[in-house]
């Protein structure tokens, strides 16, 4: 990875109109991070946190990826180390309500919760926490662990989640719907299904947000970065306003800047030009 810092320039935050980035790198399902967690290599984690924050992540996703018994301890260790170097809010990425309860006690800033779905048990367990702490929450457009195959069915799940969120007093503006980008490898329509779901959400719930776990779309394919990038651009036109991705990926950052410009969201092209001055579009050496 050739970053700007390596060229003697600081790795700066690019100002973006409305696209928010959830930095994905602190994830225990990645080998190197798993090793750092196991060996309690705090410096490695702090470095990942600082780099992502400097590259403009709005939240830092934190997934311990460890066994449920160890997960709460590992999450707390990760969060405390991250918070010792950056103020960027955490996105607590866990399917384990116990770990969530413990992690939420140690965060300094209001965290994002990643994630809920249409599964009734998770809604009942997690929505009260979300409401109490005023957290933004990622909601997956799937039900009882089944992923609906059509946009229509995914939107029905989203309607259910919105209704339940309202019961608990969670406003639309704290809901980040993930329409789910399944790999194109197994269904070449999967991006189109995601776009259609996004458009429905934009239309029916203008205050709600959209997000996406980006890398899954290209799973099993060659040239993944191209697929990810163009998928992201088209998703932004369908209303996507945040994404879980690697903020250190210059090509993705450049794609976001260019897409915001093309979509008429960058007044006088200033953000784009400033990003250019900061070296975002320079050819890596």
């Amino acid at each position: 990875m050739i970053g700007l810092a390596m060229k003697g320039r600081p790795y700066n935050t690019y100002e973006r109109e409305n696209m928010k980035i959830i930095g994905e790198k602190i994830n225990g399902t990645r080998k190197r991070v798993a090793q750092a967690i196991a060996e309690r290599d705090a410096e490695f984690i702090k470095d990942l946190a600082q780099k992502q924050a400097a590259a403009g992540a709005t939240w830092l996703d934190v997934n311990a990826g460890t066994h449920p018994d160890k997960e709460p301890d590992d999450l707390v260790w990760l969060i405390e180390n991250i918070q010792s170097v950056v103020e960027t809010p955490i996105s607590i990425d866990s399917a384990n309500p116990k770990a969530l309860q413990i992690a939420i006690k140690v965060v300094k800033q209001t965290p994002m919760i990643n994630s809920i779905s249409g599964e009734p048990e998770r809604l009942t367990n997690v929505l009260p926490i979300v409401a109490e702490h005023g957290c933004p929450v990622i909601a997956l457009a799937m039900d009882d662990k089944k992923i609906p195959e059509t946009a229509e069915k995914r939107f029905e799940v989203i309607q259910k989640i919105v209704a339940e969120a309202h019961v608990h007093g969670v406003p639309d503006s704290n809901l980040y719907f993930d329409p789910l980008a399944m790999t194109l490898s197994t269904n070449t329509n999967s991006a189109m299904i995601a776009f259609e779901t996004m458009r429905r959400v934009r239309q029916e719930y203008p205050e709600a947000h959209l997000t996406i776990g980006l890398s899954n779309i290209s799973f099993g394919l060659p040239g993944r970065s191209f697929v990810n990038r163009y998928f992201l651009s088209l998703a932004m036109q369908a209303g996507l306003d945040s994404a879980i991705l690697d903020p250190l990926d210059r090509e993705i950052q450049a794609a976001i800047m260019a897409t915001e410009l093309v979509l008429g969201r960058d007044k006088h092209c200033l953000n784009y030009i400033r990003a250019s001055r900061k070296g975002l579009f320079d050819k890596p050496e």
Partner: protein
Amino acid sequence: MSQELIDAITDMREEDAVAITKKLLDGGASPVAVLDACREAMGIIGMRFETGESFMPELILAGEILAQISAVVKPRMQQGGEDKKLGKIVLGTVQGDIHDIAKDIVGFMLDINGFEVTDLGVDVAPEKFVETVKSTGAKIVGLSGFLTLAFDPMKHTVEALKAAGLTDVKVMIGGGQIDENIRQYTGADAYGKDAMAAVAIAKSWA
């Protein structure tokens, strides 16, 4: 063995592969010879997938081509089947996990390597594994799970098989986070890093 058929399959020429199969059978080729060519072709594709020359959509398409060829070949085979299997395997993603891609690849590779695979899909309860092992008489179970949350359901499934008295059934596990520690934790007999490993383990047990 028909090189023409092998090439058609490995080049992903779907319609050609089916047409060549019909031509071969009409010309007097034996169904077994056609299936041998298929196995050869699938072995090549599997190898290319492992080395990164082939990609998942091709693997899936190859599976579809194979199914179409089987549909043509099967009616011409005699009852009792010359298509001898190495053994029966029950496969599934454990309860609480819905990841299917890796499991599908493992099932596919086991199938083309001569095992009779019963794929129970995803989010499969321990009782369902027990029930299916009993009804099929399978001696091998493959448990898949991508999430760390899959470890306990794996353990429960291994325990459920033992509790049901199926002590001669061997269990292999696989998935993103699986290693030797997890194998010990779950009580499984073996773990595999990829589909080829699953095939090697199953063959060693067959």
